[in-house]
């Protein structure tokens, strides 16, 4: 968040050893503790992805994407100011 050039943040996680619910909790903790004022796009697939999506659906300013390509397009659109 210290970099003014960052217009959107994209998380792309395909969980192998990584558990998606752990990742989601980490993202939520970060959003709580930091002043994140740019859109966040999260794509999570893999271990415990359903729990992860449920956790993230409660957060404001977070868009959940189903596929990597969709997530990249969403993040680019946010960065270009085409989405609110």
């Amino acid at each position, binding site marked *: 968040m210290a970099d003014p050039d960052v217009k959107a943040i994209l998380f792309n*996680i*395909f*969980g*192998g*050893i*990584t558990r998606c619910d752990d990742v989601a909790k980490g993202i939520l903790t970060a959003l709580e503790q930091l002043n994140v004022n740019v859109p966040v796009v999260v794509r999570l*697939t*893999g*271990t415990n992805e359903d729990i992860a999506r449920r956790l993230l659906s409660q957060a404001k300013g977070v868009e959940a994407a189903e596929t*990597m*390509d969709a997530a990249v397009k969403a993040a680019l659109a946010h960065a270009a100011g085409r989405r609110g």
Partner: protein
Amino acid sequence: MSILIDQGTKVIVQGITGRDGAFHTQGMLEYGTQVVAGVTPGRGGSATHGVPVYDSVAEARAATGAGTSVIYVPAPFAADAVYEAVDAGIKFVVCITEGIPVNDMIEIYGAVERSSSRLLGPNCPGLISPGKAKVGILPGPIHKQGPVGVVSRSGTLTYQVVDYLTRADIGQSTCVGIGGDPIIGTNFLDVLEAFEADPETRAVVLIGEIGGTDEQEAARFIKSSMKTPVVGFIAGRTAPPGKRMGHAGAIISGGGGTAAEKTAALNEVGVPVAKIPSEIPDLVARALKG
């Protein structure tokens, strides 16, 4: 057929009583892998997920006759774990552990080269022969048995590509993650050679990334020694020079090791290279049609 592992492979888990070791032992057992023994010094005589634990690899090997081991030991002890496996006569050692110092790896590399053992990794997801066995941490359910070999320097990117292939109804013979460190055991050439010799593998996906010259060497090997068609992908097309991209070995240094160079080297020997991972299934389908 498949390469390196199948339903007959007997596996010893080094570090089986640790958090990651125990978790992934369960995953391997659920996938149907023959996990016959675990090793944690001082914990001999106990059991993890019903797998008997021994104090040393030598004991575990003597009791079970296993020829493969997988290492989930924390980085400070992982080098010793590799030596122990090689000393005990394990023929195929898969090291998942990330963070082994390069200095240690230089010595390990030499020791493995002088032995008759093969090392996969470190800092790798292991490998899977779908429907037969997995040794490592790859998510089993995304895979499907079939004719395509996959070899990759990146774990997560492998899963992504395999997921695309499976969704396109293209199965895999064996998927091998060789690891993202600057010094690794088994490299692209070793795996390509094995795929070329496997009658079940009818096409290969090679997933490379910036840094080093492994993909260029793979291109030379494909030209000189392979009839099986290969499809490529190189991660890091937009990577800025001098910046490490996730893996210790993924760095454009001295202007060398760029995605453009690697793509050109592969294209030159007739290997199509996908610009984004989602293009891979189409390229593979074309390769399979010949």
